[in-house]
């Protein structure tokens, strides 16, 4: 993994977020409080604005910088969660990050989201995308697999994760106030994570 790749991903993730305004806002209006898109957009644009600084940093330090930038720009619930992810990822990675290391870092990032948000699988949150993805990533990295297979499998696990949130009863996040009324709606935080992961998969192609 190089910073060239990280920066390419940042640009396409920002583009994906901007293109998904209607979809994310629709989901958040149904079961959230309507600020998710605005926060995610602010955070991704803040990260995009430090691109020139990131080009000079090794991946681990770039991840740390991304984490700090998200921590101070996003706010809300997603800010600390995304920030915790990147700060933990930075700790597990190094100057020359390979897939093994990255998957370990990804898992540790997901664990720090679980700690910070005190949530688990099945709570109708972003973790319903992130946990299956981290498990799949870990097992694919351990087995050693072809790039195209990795891309395909990760993308489909992320999509399956987001679809699964539809029938879940929320227990964390703002939609918890809705309980039964949220059943039948996809979780907007899970959707955002899936969009980001699918975008990174596309960039890997």
């Amino acid at each position, binding site marked *: 993994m190089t910073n060239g790749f990280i920066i390419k991903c940042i640009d396409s993730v920002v583009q994906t977020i901007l293109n998904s305004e209607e979809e994310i*806002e629709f989901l958040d209006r149904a079961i959230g409080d*309507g600020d998710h898109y605005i926060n995610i957009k602010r955070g991704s644009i803040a990260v995009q604005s430090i691109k020139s600084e990131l080009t000079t940093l090794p991946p681990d330090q770039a991840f740390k910088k991304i984490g700090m930038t998200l921590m101070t720009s996003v706010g809300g619930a997603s800010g600390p969660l995304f920030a915790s992810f990147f700060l933990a990822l930075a700790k597990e990675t190094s100057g020359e990050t390979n897939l093994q290391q990255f998957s370990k870092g990804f898992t540790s990032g997901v664990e720090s989201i679980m700690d910070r948000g005190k949530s688990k699988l099945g709570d109708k949150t972003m973790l319903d995308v992130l946990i299956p993805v981290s498990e799949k990533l870990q097992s694919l990295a351990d087995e050693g697999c072809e790039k195209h297979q990795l891309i395909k499998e990760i993308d489909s696990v992320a999509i399956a994760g987001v679809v699964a949130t539809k029938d879940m009863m929320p*227990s964390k996040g703002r939609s918890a106030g809705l309980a039964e009324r949220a059943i039948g709606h996809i979780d907007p935080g899970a959707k955002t994570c899936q969009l980001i992961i699918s975008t990174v998969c596309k960039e890997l192609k």
Partner: protein
Amino acid sequence: MKKFINKTDDFIIDSLKGFANAHNNLVTLNLNPIFVTRKEINPNKVLLVSGGGSGHEPLHTGYIGKGMLDVACPGHVFTSPTPDQMIAAVEKCQPKLGVLFIVKNYSGDVMNFEMASEMIDFDHQTVLTNDDAAVINSSYTTGRRGVAGTLIVEKVVGSHAEAGGDLSSCKELGDKVNHHCSSIGVALSSCIIPAAGKPTFDIGIDEIEFGVGIHGEPGRKRDKIRMAHHIVEDMLSAILKDFDEKSLDLKDPRGILLLVNGFSGTPLSELYLIYQAVSEKLEEKQIYISRSLVGNYTTALDMAGASITMCLLDDEIKKHWDSSVLTSNLRWGY
């Protein structure tokens, strides 16, 4: 959407500058990161720091001043502040007796304040407010939401801290007041977040959202609009049930503090009408209203609607509620 805005991105900062300017005898606004402190910082008392998403004004900035808060950290509209704001504010104030964070129980606020408290080198405690009786506390919720009862916590603990109370007694008193408060809100219309430009939720012309949160987030159920005293009856029974479950006896002769709070889109005349309906019902139930407050104290942008908060008083809470306070939006005794 029609709002007084220059640039959407500048909404909060433009508004905060006006607030600080209008009340420059009381507060100072810091930019980069954003926080508001008392004009004269007193490092020799427990520092009371609150904050949260903007859009609930006068909560929290309007309660900065003698006898109440020392610092407020406003976030973007309905979005919690970020940890760097709280860290910078505490570092500027250099409190010698520690910091008490007063945080409304929303996952975003809790997490950002938690990150901040992990990163400061001062003694600290946190009071989480969760007075909203609407959301039932179960394994399916993050717990109850903090709403208008928060300002009662800020006033009472503010008085105690001003009188020299130490950190642990401030924390204890804050938890007690929160426990003694119960609230429920009803929305008649949605609010519009400036950056979103459209209503947060759809609601029919003849509908109300019962148990609404202060971000326009859904509560218990969607109802048809009815006569005010019928709506008030439902609101009261939710609150009374909550006090029952907390095993607090509202018939205490020391009485209650009744706060009828507007979400800002409902005129005062309607809030007083609600107050009257509540007080008649409480009289039937032999619950004594000892203190009252009616007005827009914890708002939800331009949402129409109101909440009722009852706080069971004891001698300590009553004494600190009555003590003098000098903030832009709550002031007496000076």
